[in-house]
């Protein structure tokens, strides 16, 4: 967050905290502390075939996975950096630690974790959420590997598999051979290639036919080491007629130099199944967040991405849905908040590959303090995908005069019998609204935060309750110092 540098006096800060007790202690980026870093200090920097072989050997992976990693490493070397979007020229791939092992074995109960890691997750509120049974299963990834894992017994009985991806590969090799890399091939793009070469951790979920997972499965990702690259790999398979909601959150400490988070998320939504995937990304302001997320939706299936981008230095993320079967449905709700020094280049991609498919994209972005938020999207209707319908709505809110907002909605229609709509608005917080709220006794910054919350409300209400609260808090934080 930018609050560590935004000009505000302690008096102002106290004032805000007095009015909002839940914000006490949130004056700076809340998750910015760093634990002692013995594992990170000894980790190797730089990328080479040896590093990849080493990662694979430590995990005792099957030969085919090693081969895929090595092939992806070659592709990574060959592929050029993106020449669009954000400026990525400052990423130093040679300075990154590609694999950091933080604990010897995975814990199944919270108390088994080393004290510093346990502390971290306590401060993030993970066991709390689990205790309250708001979430059905919890995975926590610290550095490269998942350190804590728990799944509700009831779900286990129904045959739901919720593991970290490393264990998933060990225990369910047949599913991995079938699906791993099938939605996002290793050579899809430079960062997907990188992830495929050095991936570690992430979540693996399989939901059997007809099983409805009523409460969300949750994962939390944390980077602790400086110059760390986190490359988690998530694979979700929702079998016919099933339903699952997966929620992930991310944080990192504040260091002087940058870290890289480059995840790959593959989701297979089978016939009549429904998957909802919620992310509230709150990386610290020195993380490059370059993520490839894609889902395929079969006949009658529904895929929903709810994507909140609050933190990071640079985010380039465009969750995609390939609508492969008739009457498949895709929906993306995206919120981006770009504060000082941040570029949120976020959006969505919808590919209509079958007739009677429908998609909708709703994007809300806020920029302040010189930050830049971009909506970049693609809606593509392939030949044969007649009678498809798509709507895209992008709203941007600028709260000052130095921030930037862009809208790049690509549309590519190769079929004639479709209906497409796109609409975008960019507005400034209106003096009238502010005046009205202030005339009711609100301070200007409070009023401003309320307007921003109102602006993103249509998306916030789709979040699980604790995440909606979290989002509101983050917005409040982002808006501190926005006035005056």
């Amino acid at each position, binding site marked *: 967050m930018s609050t560590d540098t935004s000009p505000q006096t302690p008096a102002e800060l106290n004032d805000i905290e007095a009015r909002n007790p839940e914000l006490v202690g949130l004056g700076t980026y809340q998750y910015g502390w760093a634990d002692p870093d013995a594992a990170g200090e000894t980790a190797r920097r730089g990328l080479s075939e040896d590093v990849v072989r080493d990662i694979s050997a430590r995990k005792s992976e099957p030969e085919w996975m090693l081969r895929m990693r090595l092939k992806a490493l070659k592709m990574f070397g060959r592929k050029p950096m993106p*020449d669009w979007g954000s400026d990525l020229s400052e990423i130093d791939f040679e300075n990154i630690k590609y694999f950091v092992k933080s604990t010897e074995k995975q814990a199944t109960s919270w108390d088994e974790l080393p004290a510093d890691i346990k502390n971290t997750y306590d401060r993030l509120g993970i066991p709390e959420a689990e205790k309250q049974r708001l979430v059905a299963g919890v995975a926590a990834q610290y550095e490269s590997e998942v350190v804590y894992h728990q799944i509700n017994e009831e779900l286990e009985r129904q045959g739901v598999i919720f593991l970290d991806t490393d264990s998933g590969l060990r225990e369910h090799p047949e599913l991995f051979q079938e699906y791993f890399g099938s939605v996002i091939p290793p050579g899809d793009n430079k960062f997907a290639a990188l992830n495929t070469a050095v991936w570690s951790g992430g979540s693996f979920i399989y939901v059997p036919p007809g099983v409805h997972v009523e409460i969300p499965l949750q994962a939390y990702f944390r980077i602790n080491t400086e110059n760390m690259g986190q490359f988690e790999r998530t694979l979700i398979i929702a079998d016919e007629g099933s339903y699952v909601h997966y929620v992930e959150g991310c944080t990192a400490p504040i260091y002087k130099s940058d870290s890289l988070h480059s995840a790959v998320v593959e989701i297979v939504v089978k016939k009549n199944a429904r998957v909802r995937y919620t992310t509230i990304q709150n990386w610290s302001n020195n993380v490059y967040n370059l993520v490839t997320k894609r889902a395929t939706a079969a006949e009658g299936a529904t895929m929903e991405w709810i994507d909140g981008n609050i933190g990071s230095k640079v985010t380039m993320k465009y*969750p995609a849905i390939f609508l492969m079967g008739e009457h498949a449905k895709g929906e993306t709700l995206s919120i981006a908040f770009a504060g000082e020094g941040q570029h949120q280049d976020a959006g969505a991609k919808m590919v209509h590959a079958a007739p009677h498919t429908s998609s909708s994209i709703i994007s809300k972005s806020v920029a302040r303090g010189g930050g830049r938020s971009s909506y970049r999207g693609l809606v*593509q209707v392939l030949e044969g995908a007649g009678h498809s319908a798509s709507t895209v709505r992008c709203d941007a809110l600028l709260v000052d*005069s130095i921030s930037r907002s862009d809208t790049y909605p690509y549309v590519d229609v190769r079929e004639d019998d479709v209906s497409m709509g796109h609409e975008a608005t960019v507005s400034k917080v209106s003096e009238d609204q502010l005046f009205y709220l202030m005339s009711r006794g609100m301070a200007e910054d409070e009023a401003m935060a309320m307007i921003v919350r109102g602006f993103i409300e249509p998306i916030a209400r789709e979040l699980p309750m604790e995440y909606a609260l979290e989002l509101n808090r983050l917005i409040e934080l982002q808006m501190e110092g926005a006035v005056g």
Partner: protein
Amino acid sequence: MADTSNSTTTSIPTDEALGLDGLDAGREDLALDLPGGAPATLTAPLSGASVPDGGSPVGSAPAQHGLNAHSHGAGVPATNRAERRTSFDVADFPVPSGREEDWRFTPIERARDLFEPAGASVSGLRVEVSTADGVTHRRGSSDASAGKGFVPGDRAAAVAWADAASAGAVDVVDIAAEADLAEPVLVRVASDAPRSAGHLVVRAGAYSRATVVLDHSGSGHVGSGVEAVVGEGAHLVVVSVHQWEDDAVHLAQHDLLVGRDATVKHVVVTLGGSLVRVGSTVRYAGPGGDATLLGVYFSDAGQHLEHRSFVDHEAANCRSNVTYKGALQGETARAVWVGDVLIRASALGTDTYELNRNLVLTDGARADSVPNLEIETGEIVGAGHASATGRFDDEQLFYLQSRGIPEDQARRMVVRAFFADVLQQIGVRSITDQLMAAIEAELELADGSGDEGDLPVVADGVEAELAGARL
């Protein structure tokens, strides 16, 4: 090329089967085959925004700008639309391959010759100007006033600029300061050579009021440039009508420089031609300028009509409003609209809106609509865009038929209503009438029936009602 590539990984028919190049698994070998290897192989990076462009071995990036011409180090993206290269020198632009963001929709094989200067073999466009008091016209191979409000933005425009000079086809139409012209200035532009070029400068003096109508006809391959330099407080309407023969190819760039407190209305009407591509750029020389860009197009079988506009808001308190509407009918009829708006940090008080609507009348036609908006300041009055592509609305049709109107007439009414508001905005009576007649003719062509006679009286009211209806 792409068709020969193998997908190494499994399952979903993503890449080759779908022709999606964002997913270029197994294509690393192809990438190596490309000359020079590096920056030319723009694989689409992160999944979301890769823009598949059917059949090319490498995905084209969805960037608006491509590499910054003055990039510091490789791979630094240009930060806004204005950084895209402009130059009078043909050599500054590589020959388009069709994969560039700027050319990815265009069937460039139809226009290959327009990417190389023709030297002595090029003919000048024939230009006749109806002069009146306060209007002067001169023609030559160069003119001191040319290039003041114009700079080529792509290779075709740079070639046209060079060709117009070799052919002695630089025309300048001057409208005297404070002149108030009652009648439109008619500029007849004709091509009857296989290859022709021209450059037209329209200079509207301060506080003048004028309408200039460019009427393009003939055939052949044409590259042309138009620049309108609108003086302080002037009011200029430029209408460019393209009614080419079926085999004509025309690549044009229109640049408008809007003076302080000036008002300009730029209308592009595109009906005929095999490939017509018109790029319009608006810049403001001072605060208070007001630009309205209007477009009407009707694409038939085999036609590719492409319109691109770029409004560069740099001065404060300027307005822009872009409305393009088009109908498509027939196999392989294509229409492309790309509308870029940039509001720079200095452009406080900007008010802008862009709208594109496409009405697809028959199977097999395709419209692409891409509005892009970049905003570098929050101190604006408003900014937005909307685009929609839709089928002929069966409900509207049903409603009209239920009122006793036969289907073919009902169809025409819906099309008329679709175009009604943009035609109204053009405000030049002779053009509006001509256009309405042309649209009628297109529709008759489609349903093969002759004139149906006058519409019933009820039509007017219903038409008005439909005009307000959402497409």
